[in-house]
C-alpha cells in the first residue's frame, strides 16, 4: 500500500532533521556564539561592582525625579522581563483613553507645560522598550537636572551625545537608551 511505502522515509527524515537541526545545530551554534560574542550571546548584561544591573537591550522601571524614565509598560509588574507583551487595547478602547489621560496629566506635572510626545504616554509592543524618543528625553532634562543639582546645559549635552540618529537620515529614529543615559548621568555626577 502506498502510505506504508512512505512510512520509512517520512519517519527517518523527521528523526534525522530533528537530531541535526534541533539538537546538533543549536548546541554547536550556541558554543560558537558563546566563544565569538559572549557579551551579546548572554543577553548584553551590564555589571556594576560585579553585580548585574540590567541588560542594555531590556528596559527597566526608573523611579524618582533623579532618573530619566522609560515608556509605560503593559506588563505586570511594570518592566517584568520574565514576560513580554503589549496592552492590546484598541484605538477605540475606553480603557486606553482612561490610561492616556492620567499619563498625560502626570507628564505635564513632572516636566512642565508643553507638548507631550505620544510615544512617552503609550505602552510599547514588548513592554520592555529600552529607549525613549529624543524629544521625550529633552523634555525630561530640566526636571532631572534640577533633581540632581546639575546644570541643564550639561545634561542636555549628555542626552544629545548619547542619542542615536537615523542612518542616512531615514533608517531608524532619534532615540536614547534610558539605562545608558541614567548610568552616564551617575558618572557625570561622580566627576
Amino acid at each position: 500500500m502506498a502510505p506504508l511505502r512512505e512510512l520509512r522515509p517520512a519517519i527517518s527524515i523527521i528523526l534525522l532533521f530533528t537530531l541535526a537541526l534541533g539538537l546538533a545545530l543549536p548546541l554547536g551554534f550556541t558554543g560558537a556564539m558563546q566563544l565569538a560574542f559572549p557579551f551579546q550571546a548572554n543577553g548584553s548584561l551590564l555589571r556594576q561592582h560585579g553585580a548585574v544591573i540590567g541588560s542594555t537591550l531590556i528596559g527597566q522601571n526608573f523611579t524618582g525625579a533623579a532618573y530619566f524614565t522609560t515608556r509605560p509598560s503593559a506588563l505586570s509588574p511594570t518592566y517584568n522581563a520574565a514576560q513580554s507583551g503589549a496592552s492590546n487595547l484598541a484605538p477605540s478602547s475606553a480603557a486606553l483613553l482612561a490610561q492616556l489621560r492620567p499619563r498625560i496629566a502626570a507628564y505635564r506635572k513632572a516636566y512642565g507645560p508643553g507638548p507631550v510626545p505620544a510615544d512617552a504616554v503609550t505602552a510599547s509592543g514588548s513592554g520592555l522598550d529600552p529607549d525613549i524618543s529624543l524629544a521625550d528625553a529633552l523634555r525630561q532634562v530640566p526636571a532631572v537636572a534640577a533633581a540632581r543639582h546639575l546644570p541643564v546645559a550639561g545634561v542636555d549635552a549628555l542626552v544629545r551625545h548619547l542619542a542615536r540618529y537615523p542612518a542616512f537620515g531615514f533608517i531608524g529614529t532619534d532615540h536614547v537608551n534610558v539605562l545608558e543615559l541614567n548610568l552616564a548621568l551617575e558618572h557625570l555626577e561622580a566627576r
Partner: protein
Amino acid sequence: MTLGGWLYIVLVFALVLGAAFPLGRYIAAILEGRVTWARPVEVAVYRLAGVDEKRAMRWQDYAIAMLLLSFIHFLLLYAILRLQYYLPFNPLHIQGMAPRLAFNTAVSFTTNTNWQAYAPEQQVSYGAQMLGLTVHNFISAAAGIAAAAAVMRAFCAGGLSTLGNLYVDITRVTLYLLLPVCIIAAVYLVWSGVPMTFAGNATAHTLSGAVQSIARGPVALQEAIKEFGTNGGGFFNANAAHPFENPTIWTNLLETWLTLAIGFALPIAFGHMLKDKAQGRALMAAMAIILALGCAGAYAAEAAGNPLQIQAGATANGNWEGKEMRFGIPASTTFDVAATGTSCGAVDSFIDSYTPLGGAVPLFLMQLGEVAPGGVGSGLYTIIVFALFSVFVAGLMVGRTPEYLGKKVQAKEVKLAMLAVLVLTGFILGGTALSLLTASGLGSLANAGPHGFSEMLYGWTSATENNGSAMAGLSADTDLLDYGLGAAMLFGRFAFMIPILAIAGSLAAKPKLPPSPGTFPTNGPLFVFLLIGVIIILGGLQFLPADTLGPLAEQFLLQAGKTF
C-alpha cells in the same frame, strides 16, 4: 508621514526585489538538482533515510507523502510539548503543555502557521523550542517550497506523469537554501544582541533597586528561520517586538528582508524553470504591487495617529501604542505588512492597537489569500491558482478555452481551484460567526464594540490562511479556539494544498501547446492588472461585508469620537 518613512519602504522593496533575481535563479538550480556543493551530506541523508532519490512521484504519491510526513511530525511535536518537563534543556522547569494547547500548537507549527495561543517564556522549554518548534520551522517551510516545486514542474513540459520527489525536494531546499542563509543571518543577529544561551533567566538588580528577572534562551537560530521560512512563531510572547528577538533597526530590516526574500524569488525561479523569464516577472510584479499598496496604506494610517489620543493632549507623531521606539512607525508597519502579505505572521508592533484602517491592511492581505508574495511556496502555488482564474475569466470573455503557460485550463481544474478557495472562505466566515454566537467566543474578546468583532475575524482569518499573527488581545487558549482554530489551520493548509497538487497532476499530463495568435499573453502588464483585479475582487467580494462590520465601522465611530 515623512519623506524618510517613504524612503524606508522604497529601500525594503529595492533590497527584496533586487535579491529576488539571483536568489530565484539559485532556487531554480536547487529544484532542478544542479546545486551540488554539499552533495556528500545530501547523499548521506538519502542513505540513512532510505530515500531513493531517482524515484519520481505521481501527484497522489506526493500528496500522500506530504500528509504522512506532516502527520508524523505533528505527533512528534505533540509528544515533545506534553513531555517537555522530562526533556533536557528546561532550566526554568516548565511543566508539560495541557492537551488542548499542545494540540493547537502542534497543528500550528506543522501547518507553517505558528499561531501562538501560549506565552513562550512561561509555557515552552528551551528543549521544546529547539527539538520541536525550530525543526518544524525548517521542515514546514521546505515542505511548502516542495509543494510549489511540484506545481511549477507541472507547467514545464507536456505529458508528465510525475512531479518530483518530496523527500529530495525537502532535503535539498533545507540543505542548500534555508540552512546556509539562516546560519549567516543568525550570526549577524547574535552580534547585534540576540541571545544564544542555555543559561536560563538572568537576575538583575536595577538602578532603582528592583529585582528584574530577564528571560533569555537560544533565540538567534530560531529567529532566523522563523522569518526566512515565513513561520513567524516568536521565542518570546512579544515576538519580534521583543528587544532580544529584534534589537536594532538593522535587525528589523534584515528580518523584514528574510520574510519576503523567498516569496519574491520563487516566481523568478518559476520563470527560469519554464525557460520563459517574463512569466515569472509578471507574477512577481503582481505580488509587489499589492504589497506596495499595503505598505503605503498601513504607514499612512499609523502615521496619522489615533484621534482620541491627539484630542487627549498627546502630540500627533503617530500611533505609538504597541510600537517600539527603535523602529519607528514606517519600519513597524512595513514589518507587519510583510508578515501578513506572506504567511509569516511575526510582528514587531501589535496589530490589536493599530488604528482601524492600519489594522485592516494586514487583515485584508491575509484574506486575499496571502499572495503578496505569500508564504514560502504557498504564495506561489496560490497565485498560480489566481492566474488560472484570470485566464479563465479572460477566456470566458472571448469564448475560448483558456490556457496558462501552454496548458489548457478546463472545468476540472477550475472546479478544484474553486473548491480550495471556498473551503478557506467557509472556515473564516463560518468560524467567526459561530464563535461570536457562543459565550466562550465572546469571553475571549479583549476589546468591545466593532474592534472585538475584528479580533475574532482576524483570528479565524489568520489561522485559516496559516498566517499566525493575531490581534493578540484575543484569549485563544480555550476549548473553542484551541480546537476550532486548530481545525481551521489543518484545512487551510491541506484542504488547499491537496486540490492544488491534483490540479498540478492534471495539468502535468496535458500536452504543452505552443502559443497561438488567440492565446492570451500572460507575461505583460495587461495580465498583471487582470491578475491583481481577480485577486482583489475575489477577496473583496468574499470578505468586504465582514470587514465593514469590523475595521470600517470602528474607523467611522472613532472619527465620531465614540469609545467602547
